[in-house]
C-alpha cells in the first residue's frame, strides 16, 4: 500500500503536469480560432449533457495541421531549427569536450572547484546573460571594440542579428549540459587504460583516439542529446540575438501565439514540435539503458 503510494507520486506528477496540459494543447490545436476569450472554439461544456459532448467532438478537426503543411513557413522553420540545433550541438561538443577532458585530467583537489566554475553561470538569470551577449556582440560592443583596438579588423563585424550570434549564445548557454556528462564519464575512466594503450605501442595522441574517445562515447551522446533537444525549441536566444532571417520554430510559435493570437495554429506547431523531439528523446533513453547495462 505504502509502496503504491510512493510509486504513484511520479505518476501523479506526470499526469498533472505533462499529460493533462498536453491534452489541453492538443484540444486547442484541433479547435478553430475565434475572436473571444479564450480565442478559440468550441468549448467543453458538460451542462449540455451527452449531446453537448458529441457536438463538441464533431467540431474538432485537423484543419490546423493541414495548414502547417500548406504554408512553407512552418516546415522551413522546423528544418531550420533542426539545422541550428545540429550545428550548435556539434560546436558545443567541440568546445565542451576539451573542457571536460582538462577537468578530468586536473589534480583531484582542483576538480570540485572547476566543476563549480562550470555551474556558476546558472546562478545568474538566463535572460540577463543573453542580454549581456547583446552588449558584447553588437556593432559598438566589447568584442568589436577590442578587435578594432588590436587592429585585426578595420570596420566593425556584423555579428549580432545573424546566425553566428545565435550559435555563440547557444554554445555559451548549453555548455554545462555538454561538459558535465562527458566529465562524469572521463573522470570514472581508469587511467590504466591509456597507460595500457601506450604500453602496447600507442603514442599519447593515438591512445587518446583509440581508447579515451571510444570509452567516453556514452558521455558524449548524453551531452549531445541534452543540448540538441532543448535547442530545437529554443526561443529566447534566436529572438534576442538572431536576425530576421534566423528562422526557428520557437520564434514562429511565439508569433502565432502573441502576435497573431491564433492559439489553435500555435498549439498545432507545439504538438508537431513535441512529436519531432520524441524521436531523439526515445533514442536517448535507449542509449542510457544500454550504457547502464554495459556498466553492470
Amino acid at each position: 500500500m505504502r509502496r503504491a503510494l510512493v510509486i504513484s507520486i511520479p505518476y501523479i506528477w506526470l499526469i498533472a503536469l505533462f499529460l493533462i496540459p498536453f491534452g489541453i494543447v492538443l484540444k486547442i490545436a484541433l479547435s478553430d480560432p475565434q475572436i473571444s476569450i479564450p480565442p478559440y472554439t468550441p468549448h467543453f461544456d458538460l451542462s449540455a449533457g451527452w449531446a453537448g459532448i458529441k457536438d463538441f467532438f464533431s467540431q474538432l478537426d485537423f484543419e490546423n495541421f493541414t495548414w502547417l503543411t500548406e504554408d512553407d513557413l512552418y516546415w522551413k522553420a522546423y528544418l531550420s531549427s533542426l539545422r541550428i540545433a545540429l550545428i550548435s550541438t556539434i560546436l558545443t561538443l567541440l568546445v565542451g569536450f576539451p573542457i571536460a577532458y582538462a577537468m578530468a585530467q586536473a589534480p583531484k583537489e582542483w576538480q570540485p572547484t572547476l566543476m563549480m566554475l562550470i555551474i556558476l553561470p546558472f546562478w545568474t538569470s538566463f535572460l540577463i546573460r543573453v542580454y549581456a551577449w547583446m552588449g558584447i556582440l553588437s556593432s559598438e560592443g566589447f568584442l568589436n571594440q577590442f578587435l578594432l583596438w588590436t587592429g585585426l579588423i578595420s570596420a566593425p563585424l556584423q555579428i549580432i542579428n545573424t546566425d553566428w550570434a545565435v550559435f555563440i549564445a547557444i554554445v555559451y548557454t548549453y555548455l554545462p549540459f555538454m561538459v558535465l556528462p562527458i566529465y562524469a564519464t572521463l573522470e570514472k575512466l581508469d587511467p590504466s587504460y591509456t597507460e595500457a594503450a601506450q604500453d602496447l605501442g600507442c603514442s599519447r595522441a593515438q591512445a587518446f583516439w583509440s581508447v579515451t574517445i571510444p570509452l567516453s562515447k556514452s558521455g558524449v551522446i548524453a551531452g549531445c542529446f541534452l543540448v540538441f533537444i532543448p535547442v530545437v525549441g529554443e526561443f529566447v536566444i534566436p529572438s534576442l540575438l538572431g536576425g530576421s532571417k534566423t528562422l526557428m520554430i520557437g520564434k514562429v510559435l511565439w508569433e502565432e501565439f502573441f502576435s497573431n493570437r491564433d492559439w489553435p495554429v500555435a498549439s498545432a506547431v507545439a504538438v508537431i514540435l513535441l512529436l519531432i523531439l520524441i524521436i531523439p528523446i526515445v533514442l536517448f533513453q535507449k542509449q542510457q539503458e544500454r550504457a547502464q547495462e554495459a556498466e553492470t
Partner: protein
Amino acid sequence: MSNDPLHPWEDPQATPLIRFENVTKRFGSFVAVDNLTLDIYEKEFFALLGASGCGKTTLMRMLAGFEQPTEGRITLNGEDIAPIPVNKRDINMMFQSYALFPHLTVAENIAFGLKRSDMPASEITGRVDEMLNLVQLSAFAKRKPHQISGGQRQRVALARSLAKNPKVLLLDEPLAALDKKLRQETQFELMDIQEKLGTTFMIVTHDQEEAMTVASRVAVMNAGIIRQIATPDAIYERPNSAYVADFIGEVNLIDGKITSCTETTCTIAWDGGTITAKPRKKLDKGTEVRFAIRPEKVAISSTKPDAVNSVQGKVLDIAYLGNISTYHVETEHGQIIKAQLANAKRLSRRSFTWEDPVWLSWTDTAGIVLTE
C-alpha cells in the same frame, strides 16, 4: 655451478638483461626508490616482494617507462632506456586491473598492440590465434571483456601483453583479483608459459607464497631498498636479516649475546639459557644477536629430549590449520616460541593440549644467527 644456465646470477661472466644502476626516485620529498642497484638476467622469473608502499611498483613503472628515475640509470641489453618513450620500449606490462579495453573484443584486445607494430596485417590474425591458444581462450575470441570471468580476463591480459613478444614482461600483482584456488592454478600456468616462451618475467607482488612459487629469484623490498635478493629457498632458509626472516613466513626471533664463538659453532646466552648454533662467520664475544628459527624446525615433546638445544614451557595457544597446528609455547621467562607439528594423527588423539608442560628442542643447524 658457475656456468649453470639456470643460475646466471652466479656466473660473474654473465651480462644482465636489465640493470638498475644506483637508481633513486623521489616524489617531492618522498623517496620511493633509494639508490637501488639490481641485475636481472635473461629468462629469469624475477619477483619483487614487499608490503604496499615499499617502492616495488615504482621500480616496475620506471622500467615500463611511466616514470623516469630521479637519479641513476636503467639499461636494457646495455642500452640506457631513459630516452626511449613507453610506446617504443621492448617491454610490456600486465596491469593489476588488467586494463582490458571494454569496447573491444578479446581478439581485438590481443591484436591492439600488434596493429601498432610493424607486423603486416596478414600475420596479425595468425598471431592472435596463437596467443588465444596459449591461454586456452580460442572459444572466447569474439566476447567482450565483461562477458567473461575474472580468471579468463586475467588470461586475456596476459595474452595481450605477450602478443608483441616483448623482451621483458612486467606483471603488476597479476593474480591479486583471483580467489585462492584459481590463484594457485594460475601460478603454475604462468610458470609453464614463461618456460615455454623463455621471456624474462618480472612480477611485483605482496603475496610471499606467490613470489616463492613462481620466481627463480626473489627480491625483498622495504622502504625503497632491496633487503635481500636470493632464490626462494635461500630467502626462506638463510635470510640475511631479522626483517627478511620475519617478512617471509613465520619465525621465532630470540634476542641474545654471544658467549663463545668459533668458525663453526657458537653459544648464545638468552633469558632461557643458552643456544648452540652454527654462525655464518666467527662472531666476537658479547655481540648482540638475534637467533631466528622457523616454527616447523622446533620439535615438541612431553619429556626432556636428548637434543643440543632444549627449553621447557607450557602450551599457551594452539592454532589449528588443518594440515598443521602451531603451538604457542610460553617459556618460564615469558618468551613465546612457536612450534609447528604436522597433524599426522586425527585430532582426537592429539598429544598436547592447552596448559600442558612441554619441551621444545632443535638441532644446532636448524636456526640461524642474525646480526642485522
